[in-house]
């Protein structure tokens, strides 16, 4: 094995640091990017990007999904190399070829999906890649001391001997930050750090980031949440479709301006819809308990009812049981307790073909993750247009599949939903995110189900398609169908739902009226801070209404 250094110093104490601070006088910027370009085939992910990041600041980078933020940071971190352009660190140009190089320049990154080895201890994870000795013993001992010092200095307490898979997501993120600091990072890049955190964990993170900044570290925060930008950053850069459209001082801007810069035109925040006319209870969930693959109880006795003609939105921070709730109600995941009733009839969803029975009973499901779940991307479009309905009498006789009928049906839906390209023989992988979502939506709405379950309907979908998808969902509601909507985008829930249920830690902690509830109230509920006065969806009411 080769190693970059064989000195006794921990990486954090390497001489490089001194060199960096002497060069500091040369530039007030820790990082300067000039005319960065990066293409992935036909996709121009970064075009002529300029970015200057001031030393000792928190610099936010906002943009929609796919705007090129993560690509840009991966270039800075050496995970990709730019096709052209210059990177200067502390005023000195560098060609960063790999992450080891970036680390040596004092650039550390906290990835959106943590880069941790689950069955290693925190200590082992921290030293991985920067062990200063061929034997582990001395490295571990030194790291233990250094970790203690860092924990003290930056308020980042962890148990070094805890195993990663046993600690909370918030702690795992701390380990990622500690990893970067241990490697002597002066510049810390955080990619969508709050996506997996509860609001209180996010607050903790922001506190840590402020301490780091005040200690002289430079922080680059990638996010698509404007609230976070306003709360923590000193500067903000906005990216749109691979280009850098503006860099502003945070105190001189506001969310509206940033939102406009992000999408390039005024966003239609409110969806046009009339009042709801709720009718009979179509979907009644009573005291539902669901466990995940590891046997952890993720849904802890949830009860609610959805009536025909209304959209019930479930709001919450990702990872509070929404995914398991959807998977269970739609028959993909076994229930550990409770009942699900459709128009009064209990659904039996046990076994690994539960989704089949749910569909037969009139329950359709647009899943949260269309690429992983809702589609077989290697299939041709028409094949996906019958996924889950392949045994429908319309598509064949007996065991034989009527391919002609299936293709014809697919063509009809392509026309109706304006799916492009309009070719049912094309591999599904070659459709854009929005068009893939339309394929799923068209399929699930085709049989006019009584209940439609929708998870993250517009994740990774372009703006034009978002409006179309929202309108389709409302059209279904107006046709008297019951719709259960789950989204982590609070804006989407607030503009679509007629009633909002807030989920926290596997439970429904409150109900709100989207017309009157403020973002702050919802945020508190999402953080698990419930007001006793809040209307908690009553299991009795749901059961009563269903029977």
């Amino acid at each position, binding site marked *: *094995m080769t190693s970059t250094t064989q000195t006794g110093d921990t990486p954090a104490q390497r001489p490089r640091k001194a060199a960096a601070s002497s060069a500091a006088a040369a530039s007030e910027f820790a990082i300067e990017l000039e005319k960065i370009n990066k293409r992935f085939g036909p996709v121009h992910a970064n075009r002529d990007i300029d970015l200057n990041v001031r030393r000792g600041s928190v610099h936010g980078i906002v943009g929609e999904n796919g705007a090129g933020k993560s690509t840009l940071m991966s270039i800075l971190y050496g995970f990709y190399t730019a096709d052209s352009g210059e990177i200067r660190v502390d005023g000195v140009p560098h060609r960063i070829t790999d992450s*080891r190089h970036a680390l040596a320049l004092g650039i550390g990154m906290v990835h959106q999906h943590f880069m941790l*080895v689950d069955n290693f201890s925190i200590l082992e*994870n921290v030293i*991985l*890649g920067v062990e200063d000795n061929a*034997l*582990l013993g001395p490295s571990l001992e030194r790291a233990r001391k250094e970790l203690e010092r860092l924990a003290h200095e930056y308020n980042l307490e962890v148990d070094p001997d805890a195993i990663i898979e046993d600690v909370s997501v918030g702690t795992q993120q701390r380990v990622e930050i500690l990893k970067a600091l241990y490697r002597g990072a002066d510049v810390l890049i955080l990619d969508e750090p709050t996506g997996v955190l509860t609001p209180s964990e996010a607050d903790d993170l922001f506190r840590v980031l402020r301490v780091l900044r005040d200690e002289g570290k430079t922080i680059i925060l990638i996010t698509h949440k404007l609230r976070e930008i306003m709360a923590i950053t000193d500067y903000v850069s906005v990216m749109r479709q691979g280009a850098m459209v503006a860099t502003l001082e945070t105190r001189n801007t506001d969310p509206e301006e940033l939102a406009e810069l992000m999408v390039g035109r005024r966003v239609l925040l409110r969806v046009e819809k009339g009042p709801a006319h709720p009718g009979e209870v179509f979907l009644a969930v009573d005291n539902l308990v669901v466990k995940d693959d590891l046997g952890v109880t993720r849904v802890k006795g949830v009860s609610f009812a959805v009536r025909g003609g209304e959209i019930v939105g479930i709001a919450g921070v990702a990872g509070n049981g929404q995914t398991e709730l959807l998977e269970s109600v739609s028959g993909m995941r076994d229930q550990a307790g409770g009942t699900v009733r459709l128009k009064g009839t209990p659904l039996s969803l046990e076994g690994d073909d539960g989704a089949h029975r749910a569909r037969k009973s009139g329950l359709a499901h647009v899943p949260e993750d269309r690429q992983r779940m809702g589609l077989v991307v290697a299939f041709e479009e028409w094949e996906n247009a019958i996924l889950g309905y392949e045994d429908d009498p319309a598509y064949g006789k007996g065991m034989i599949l009527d391919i002609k009928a299936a293709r014809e049906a697919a063509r009809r839906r392509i026309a109706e939903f304006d799916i492009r390209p309009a070719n049912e023989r094309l591999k599904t992988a070659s459709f854009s995110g929005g068009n893939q979502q339309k394929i799923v939506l068209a399929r699930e709405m085709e049989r006019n189900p009584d209940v439609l379950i929708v998870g993250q309907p517009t994740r990774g979908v372009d703006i034009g398609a978002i409006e179309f998808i929202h309108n389709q969902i409302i059209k279904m509601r107006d046709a008297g169908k019951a719709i259960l909507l789950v989204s982590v985008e609070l804006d989407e829930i607030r503009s679509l739902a007629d009633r909002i249920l807030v989920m926290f830690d596997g439970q429904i902690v409150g109900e709100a009226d989207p017309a009157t509830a403020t973002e702050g109230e919802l945020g508190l509920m999402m953080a698990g801070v419930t007001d006793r006065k809040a209307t908690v969806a009553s299991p009795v009411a749901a059961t009563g209404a269903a029977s």
Partner: protein
Amino acid sequence: MDLALVLSTLDATIRLSTPLLLASLAGLYSERSGVFDIGLEGKMLMAAFAAGAAAAVFDSVWIGLFAGIMVSLATAGLQGAAAITLKGNQLIAGVAINMLAAGLTTFLGIQWFAQGGRTPQLAAGERFTEITLPFADELQGIPVIGQIYHDLISGHNLLVYIAFLAVPITWFVLYRTRFGLRLRAVGENPKAVDTAGISVIRLRYQAVLITGLLCGFAGAFFSIAQGSGFGNNMTAGKGFIALAALIFAKWKPVPVMLTCLLFGFLDALQIRLQGQSILGVQIPVQAIQALPYVLTVVLLAGFIGKAVGPKAGGVPYTKER
């Protein structure tokens, strides 16, 4: 049974478990790094042939061992190129290596030595012979301990000692060195290793080459230690028993040794029991032969404990865009 009979059965156990142990430890390195290896059998067979052929041609056991190791390393390199660099299907690569070994060793053997695939019979200096450990003969007279030392511990060939020495070494490498830490990490989460600035590709090649090295010793054991010359399909599926042992031992070095000893013992027992009966019941030798496989299936199915391999095993590493 008297002590002598027990000792001779255990002695056979050690001998029979040696190639299993070497091959199983070989597989441990590769699989811990995230590269499934069902080609242990093929690499051993290649090494056995090369060792047998070279030892015969050059009249030297050492050249034989060297040739066996080199050929095994080259085969491992080929498998690595397919599985790591070209990101091919690791299982299919293993199948191909096994088949290539079966075909090539026989084909070349017939062509070169014209003895139906056998390599020439090796003389004493051309194969590893039994080593008598210091004082073994002197201590033989001491009851039990002396006998155990003389009959069981002493009197094996060099490769046997290498195999059992490889166990603590592997344990130390895996759990006490930087390389071991990285090896375990790359089999669990190669992306974490990559972002830490360590080359996944390089690490996996290192692991696969260690696998090749150990398979070289294992193969040489067949043709120039246990046997005196190579014979057609000499490894006779031992590579798969070694794989079974690796799974049975949950990819951990010390349990690997214990499992290989168990499987070796079953083999020794099977030879001893040919045609004999225990308590009046004749146990078919085939039942004992099949036992390692049956045990592994039962363990894999989670009926006794659960064997879960390295998480990233079997998946070629690709940087995503």
